[in-house]
């Protein structure tokens, strides 16, 4: 447990302490790692619902007549093509194609976008967006410090949220599509509801003014607990997203990685054009175009453990020796854990292309021992 004096606390910090959470430093914030048990919190999200404090995430607003055009230039996707009320997963890359962060961009109005960045990257993303929006008629406003974010995730999330939503907004919540958002009043608090998440379950993320976060949090807990909702920490969030095959910046994505290696080439819109059909240059385009047409040196794969011992981030992926010993290194694990839902170890790893085919039998060097793993498609878990 690292409790760095420098770590910031969210508006919900006192709630976490009162709930008995173990706190941990993450991305410059002191966040709940777990409240009771990682496994119980993970299972609650799969079976009923979990409540997460995600206030460490960065919320950067872009407004103005050219807000969409500025994002088209700044990000690898085409933000200006997002319809009002919808959202899209994207990335911000450096000129050399390296991933600086993965993001969700919500279009809140014709001239209003919300970019949600990872906690550890939020300051840099905001700075890059300011730089990249220069010359566009758009204003970049980093509201990370004054915005809290609570997520209700799990099969009962809709029921829990709808029960707290003002009558006029209930239908909006009930019929909201995945990767959509709308303003709503929940537990008497005006906020932005988005049907997004990072768990592989249905669920909602609620962007709220930090000074209303506590009353919202308490209302969600009180309304959700009879339906099986529990507060859930970063540990459960990590195992949930891993089962769902979702990348975590700093693990599957970093500044040595392009979107293509990460299997995310689809988010790069090399052919994006403006409304008149003219090609749209964007930061990183030249480097990414070159990478798009060459085979990457390494590929992100899913690994399923055939034994019981989990692989961990940083462990070598190796060939299986003839006598079960550790063979030649062919890759590296980026995330790994015992899967609470599936009951066997799962991992994501970068491996060389020749060993990336589904069914390839490999091993992970678990502290000197070759633990057998086999390449499987991602995600490991898909909700039914």
């Amino acid at each position, binding site marked *: *447990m690292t409790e760095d004096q420098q770590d910031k606390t969210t508006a919900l910090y006192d709630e976490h302490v009162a709930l008995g959470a*173990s706190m941990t430093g993450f991305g410059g914030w002191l966040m709940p*790692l*777990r409240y009771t*048990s*990682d*496994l119980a919190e*993970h299972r609650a999200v799969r079976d009923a619902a979990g409540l997460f404090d995600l206030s460490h995430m960065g919320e950067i607003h872009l407004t103005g007549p050219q807000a969409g055009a500025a994002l088209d230039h700044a990000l690898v996707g085409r933000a200006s093509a997002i319809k009002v009320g919808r959202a899209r997963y994207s990335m911000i890359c450096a000129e050399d194609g390296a991933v600086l962060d993965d993001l969700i961009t919500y279009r809140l109005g014709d001239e209003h976008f919300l970019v949600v960045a990872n906690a550890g990257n939020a300051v840099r993303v905001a700075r890059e967006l300011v730089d990249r929006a220069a010359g566009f008629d758009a204003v970049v406003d980093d509201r990370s410090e004054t915005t809290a974010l609570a997520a209700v995730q799990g099969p009962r999330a809709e029921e829990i949220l709808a029960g707290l939503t003002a009558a006029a907004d209930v239908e909006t919540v009930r019929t909201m599509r995945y990767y959509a958002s709308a303003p709503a009043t929940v537990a008497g608090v005006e906020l932005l509801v988005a049907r997004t998440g990072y768990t592989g379950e249905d669920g909602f993320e609620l962007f709220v003014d930090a000074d209303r976060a506590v009353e919202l949090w308490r209302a969600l807990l009180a309304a959700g607990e009879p339906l099986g909702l529990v507060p859930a920490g970063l*540990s459960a969030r*990590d*195992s949930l997203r891993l089962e769902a095959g979702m990348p975590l910046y700093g693990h599957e994505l970093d500044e040595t990685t392009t979107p293509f290696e990460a299997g995310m080439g689809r988010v790069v819109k090399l052919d994006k054009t403006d409304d008149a059909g003219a090609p749209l240059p964007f930061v990183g385009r030249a480097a990414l175009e070159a990478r798009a047409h060459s085979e990457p040196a390494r590929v992100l794969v899913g690994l399923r453990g055939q034994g*019981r*011992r*989990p692989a*961990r981030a940083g462990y070598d992926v190796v060939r299986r020796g003839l006598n079960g010993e550790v063979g030649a290194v062919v890759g590296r694990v980026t995330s790994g*854990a*015992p899967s*609470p839902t599936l009951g066997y170890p799962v991992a994501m790893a970068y491996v060389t292309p020749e060993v990336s085919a589904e069914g390839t039998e490999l091993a992970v060097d678990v*502290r000197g021992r070759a633990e057998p793993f086999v390449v499987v498609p991602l995600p490991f878990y898909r909700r039914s």
Partner: protein
Amino acid sequence: MADFPAALHYSAEHEWVDDASPATIGVTSVAADALGDVVYLELPEVGATIEAGAVVGEIESTKSVSELYSPVSGTVVEVNQSAVDDPAVVNSDPFGAGWLFKVEVSSRGELMTAEEYAAQAG
């Protein structure tokens, strides 16, 4: 502050050992709580000669791997196979059914009383 059984002796690495012969060894509730949910145990083999303070196994939780140290020197005479099969018992009952292994003790390392351990770990 957690309650630590007064009849046990404690190591700085959060293992406990009793006075019986052979002696039973486990990890404390402090270790179990810090680890999170235990999902895999690697224990020493029966018959192995172990030394106090040396690494004799591993405890894996959902989030991390920790080394298991022996608080005593001697010969391993039994391991808790039901804990190996279902390691959750280490979290639910670390001082009881979640015991790890038994040792015919030749000598003990530097150990603390429950009170001393509570002062350090509490």
